């Protein structure tokens, strides 16, 4: 038994070292598809290595042995049809060998039939919306990292730029079908652990699917350049057992009821401003900036902005419905009454706006939003 313990002694530091090494290879993931992809990746990589050894070996041999400075005399040959045909045909055969498994895996990947769970994934600048088509649950998932970490004002967490406010929750061992589309520009929903990357394209709905084998938190990100905050829209999936999944579904239905009740409550100015700043930084600051200065002419300034210091109704309507043909989204569908009231109150009072346009209403209650919504209908 002694050899075992000594082996252990040698291996432990090696393993610790390996754990601290930065990742240099593709993940094997937690689905059959992602493992198939990994195997294809390694196979083609090894084939390339073998060809590389042969080609680079020949070059190296030439460099060492066929140097003029070593007295090499140039041979006279400059053509050999047999050789040319050989190095046309052999690579061709290697490619066929490679194409067969690649085709097999690809065909299996594209079969999204008979799903157990259907989730619509919608890309927005710059967040994801997840809609459980069979359960009537829908929510937005956006970056959880505070702006102060991004701007190096406070220490960065371990999950810097990885974490979201609300992850997608799915059951393991079920076939989950993702229906991916976009509300504005092209995004790409990428979850390396599932071997899924699907472009989210306005006007298209494309399928992808996964059967997840292990519970856990899985991290991905948007892979297609989608504007300023492309780097700040991570994807997080929490895979749980079926029992936990059912419990989670139930809790979501309850939360929905509570949020509807909250629309009737009266909030104080301080509550609204505190909640408003938080929500503004998360949903508005990437275009209109934390300072309210925006990025004119594309993203207007809100500091002393005409609409923000003008009549409240106009601003509420604009935030609820968005501005067609611009990046200003219809936030009515994304945020609840409390959050919207808080954001609008914050915008009407922050950055010195409280001193301009004093004749207009400065504090907006959730009930105002609720009223505006029903008026819109």
């Amino acid at each position, binding site marked *: 038994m002694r050899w075992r313990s000594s082996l252990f002694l040698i291996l432990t530091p090696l393993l610790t070292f390996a754990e601290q090494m930065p990742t240099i290879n593709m993940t094997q993931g937690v689905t059959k598809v992602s493992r198939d992809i990994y195997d294809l990746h390694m196979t083609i990589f090894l084939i390339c290595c073998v060809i590389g050894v042969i080609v680079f070996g020949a070059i190296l041999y030439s*460099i060492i042995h*066929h140097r003029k400075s070593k007295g090499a005399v140039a041979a006279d040959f400059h053509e050999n049809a047999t050789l040319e045909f050989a190095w046309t045909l052999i690579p061709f055969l290697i490619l066929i060998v490679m194409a067969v498994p690649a085709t097999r895996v690809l065909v299996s990947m594209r079969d999204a039939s008979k799903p157990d769970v259907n989730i619509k994934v919608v890309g927005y600048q710059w967040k994801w919306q997840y809609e459980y088509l069979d359960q009537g649950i829908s929510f937005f998932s956006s970056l959880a990292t505070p702006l102060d970490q991004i701007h190096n004002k406070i220490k960065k967490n371990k999950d810097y730029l990885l974490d979201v406010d609300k992850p997608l929750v799915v059951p393991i061992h079920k076939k989950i079908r993702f229906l991916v589309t976009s509300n504005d520009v092209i995004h790409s929903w990428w979850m390396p652990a599932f071997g899924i990357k699907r*472009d989210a394209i306005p006007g298209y709905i494309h399928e992808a699917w996964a059967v997840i084998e292990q519970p856990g938190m899985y991290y991905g990100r948007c892979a297609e350049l989608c504007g300023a905050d492309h780097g700040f829209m991570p994807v997080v999936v929490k895979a749980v057992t079926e029992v936990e999944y059912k419990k989670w579904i139930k809790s979501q239905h309850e939360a929905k009821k509570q949020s509807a009740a909250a629309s009737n409550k009266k909030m104080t100015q301080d509550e609204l401003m505190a909640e408003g700043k938080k929500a503004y930084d998360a949903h508005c600051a990437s275009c209109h900036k934390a300072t309210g200065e925006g990025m004119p002419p594309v993203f207007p300034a809100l500091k002393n902005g005409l609409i923000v210091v003008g009549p409240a109704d106009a601003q509420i309507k604009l935030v609820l419905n968005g501005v067609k043909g611009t990046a200003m989204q219809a936030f009515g569908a994304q945020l609840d009454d409390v959050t919207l009231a808080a954001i609008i109150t914050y915008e009407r009072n922050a950055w010195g706006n409280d001193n301009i346009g004093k004749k207009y209403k400065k504090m907006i209650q959730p009930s105002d939003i609720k009223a505006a919504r029903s008026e819109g209908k």
Partner: protein
Amino acid sequence: MSDAVMDSHDHDHHHGPAHKGFKRWLFTTNHKDIGTMYLIFALVMLFVGGAFALVIRAELFMPGLQIVSPDYFNQMTTMHGLVMVFMVIMPAMTGLANWQIPLMIGAPDMALPRLNNWSFWILPIALALIGSTLFIDGPGPNFGWTFYAPLSTTYGPPSTDYMIFAIHLLGLSSIMGSINIIVTIFNLRAPGMTLMKMPIFVWTWLITAFLIIAVMPVLAGAVTMMLMDRHFGTAFFEAGGGGDPVMFQHIFWFFGHPEVYILILPAFGVISEVIPTFSSKKIFGYRFMVYATASIAILSFVVWAHHMFTTGIPLAAELFFMYTTMLIAVPTGIKVFNWVGTMWRGALRFEPPMLFAVAFVILFTIGGFSGLMLSIVPADYQYQDTYFVVAHFHYVLVPGALFGIMTAVYYWLPKWSGKMYSHKLANWHFWLTVISLNLTFFPMHFLGLAGMPRRIPDYALQFTNFNAVATVGAFMFGLSQLVFVWLIISTVRSGKPTTPEVWESSHGLEWTLPSPPPYHTFETPPHVE
């Protein structure tokens, strides 16, 4: 042939440039002058595009936003790509064509000299248009050099229109340049120089010129449709109006993939000239080299959708484009094998052009390998839009296209200037460049496989180490190019005079001329046996 040279000498002393000073360059129709202007323009723009890249790398040195805003970062990636593709590699290759094609086929000048002047002088105008976007109000183009709709149409900043017109002008310039090259090669070859006796560099440019004529109008179509969508109420790429954003990508990559070969084929040509000279052997498999180049060009028209595997194109299309893409490895392999075959049992001399050429073969092949990996559709789902792709195309474009140009400068500069550069300085430039470029781009393979997407200004902590290495490498690479500039300036000013042949066992018509060649050459065509 030497008679022809003597003859042209007789006329030469009253056949110098017609104007002096700036007017000489503005009005010149001389292929050598125009070639020089193209090359200097490209060299200056290499530093401009490089500066954009260094802004990107500086921002990515550490996690967090330190130097620029995400929007400015996107402007940098866009401008870096556009400048490097349209204002560095393409003009430099055209400059080489202008200098070398008439000299190599025994023509007195390009066939359409005034068109030639105009093709060059459009470039600074295009540069002024697109460069101004960084200085006017509002963001410059900020959607990547691939400017996918609708990010560049509905959501694009006002400056996008400047980019659209700049691309029109750049397209005009390269189409006119290509027409000129094709006409020159078909009509002005010296008697006896049949097509299958042409130097490979001339062959690769002939094929490249056809590619340019075929695809630049497609790009012009794409940007015109963008302009219509932006201002005239059409909805080519607008899903809400019955249009199709994916169609933009099809059109763009129908241009974009042949464009990649436009950038690399002339470099193949340069390498095919240099390796035989410094191996003291003829090129191995000349005919197969020509056929392979033509095959690559033809195949380049049927692989475009491999840039779009994740857009949800149908399974049958995915399979088709996977197979055609894999097929490109065959003719590309033939080229590499033939270069190795040329070196095999030669008498190799490692002078600076050969150093760059050998590095080209090895490093370009590495880029080819990652290209082959990217062709496997299921694996591409994981590679697509990550730093693995960034590593791949930088390996084929930096030690590929850019090294091709540098090889050409080291090979032909003594001919153009009549002066030899310091080999010691050239060796320093070579080693610094090779080491720093690998330091910059090799870690990007790891970053991509580990999951870092491209075009992001900030990243999760797990990517920190390799990004820091890449940034250090990039700054080293940038500084190393100052050695190159110094080498060129010092050679032209005070290099040692060189012989007409310049290199031992150099071959081809250009080496029969004096170094530097007189202002007008081959006024009486040489005869090729």
